[in-house]
């Protein structure tokens, strides 16, 4: 077994020579001129290549899943719209109740109370209309951002440490 490294070297060189010809030269058509495409530049020549740092990129934590936060923002905005709509419904009910109470009221005090309720609800209705418009605008913006984010999504997650798939030798 002591001679195994030498054997491996010899086998490796013989195989490398074979693979160089049958895979790389044949696959990349080395030795044949480049097909020039009218709208593209020719590849750089080997001599123009600058040495570069070849150490692997340090593993980094996966970026925060932006699409989740956009989705959360869109959901929150939608909930805000629903909340305002619920307020409007409650206010409309208060207004209707006030009008009904005014009809039924006989005493001046009761009439005054009902009128106050009607006035407050009427005034609040205008405020709620503006609030709803703002919430709907926020919701649309959040939805647009979510749609833009979804358009970028790929069918898989980013990985920071690629694993090659070399044939498992031993």
């Amino acid at each position: 077994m002591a001679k195994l490294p030498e054997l491996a070297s010899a086998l490796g060189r013989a195989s490398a020579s074979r693979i160089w010809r049958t895979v790389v030269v044949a696959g990349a058509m080395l030795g044949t001129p480049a097909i020039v495409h009218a709208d593209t530049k020719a590849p750089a020549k080997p001599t123009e290549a600058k040495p570069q740092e070849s150490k692997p990129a340090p593993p980094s934590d996966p970026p925060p899943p932006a699409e989740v936060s956009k989705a959360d923002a869109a959901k929150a905005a939608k909930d805000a719209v629903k909340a305002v709509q619920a307020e409007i419904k409650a206010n409309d009910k208060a207004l209707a109740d006030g009008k009904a109470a005014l009809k039924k009221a006989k005493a001046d005090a009761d009439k005054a109370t009902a009128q106050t309720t009607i006035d407050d609800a009427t005034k609040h209705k205008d405020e709620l209309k503006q609030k709803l418009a703002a919430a709907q605008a926020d919701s649309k913006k959040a939805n647009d951002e979510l749609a833009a984010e979804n358009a970028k999504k790929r069918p898989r997650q980013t990985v920071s440490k690629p694993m090659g798939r070399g044939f498992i030798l031993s």
Partner: protein
Amino acid sequence: MSSDPDDALELGDIEPQGRDDAYEPTSPWWLSGTPLESEHHRLMRRRTVNIPWAETTADKLAAPERARLAATWMRRSEAEYMAVSTFSVLAIDLVAANAPADVLSLCLRAGIDEVRHAEMCLRMAKIYSGAENLPPPGMSSLPDDPDRPKLHQALANTMLVSCVSETYATTVLSATRDLTTDPVALAVLTSIYSDEVMHARLGWGYLRHAIEVGGEGVIQAAAEMLPRALRGVANVVERERPIGDVTDAVRTHGLMTPAEERIIYSTCVREVLVPGFTALGIPVGNALEDYGDAWARAA
């Protein structure tokens, strides 16, 4: 390219586009039990490498040797199984980058080839262990950067999967075949090798095409990917191995030691990968230093 007579010489008696008339279902315990099986067999019956399953010499091995071989062939089946998803994911990138039709069809066919490889490795594991196991479920991960051009994304992952991983696989398979005398192991390795040659060529062909289409930007993207691709395969080479000695008898059934594998990877980087990328104008950085003698002898 496959009609080149030199190719036929290098591939032995294999006709790369031929069919295997001696085909028999390889690992029937891994099939669905539905009529899909007949179409599956049609897809698998593509190579004219006859595997003489009955001629195995496994019975001449000691029990620990058979256990060592069973463990390695099982790992091989797992790796080949994962490669099915690797080529599937790569196909998505290639489609997104508007790759040529021949590149797409070869990439998708490579996934089918990997199914056949996984089946053969499972059967080899059964020969040594007697157990009819299945590869564990899993999915391959490839780097994904949504912000870069799709051509660069496809090119980068083609480099990892095909130019580097598959080219190394062909080199190591070729070297291992030279040591293998067991007729079944030799035929299986030859069958896998004949497919891997095309899987590797796929990458070098697409790389050439992408450079011609994309010019300097593609070269820059390739240069950025190269160290990651080389490290990715080195991660595989450096992984821990099954327990058990690689005896002389075990070696004749298609195994080398991890130390030998390092030497072969280093040789592949120096004599195949670096010259290939350099010839295409891609800067190779410190590849020769990173995977030179010091790395090769570190095991």
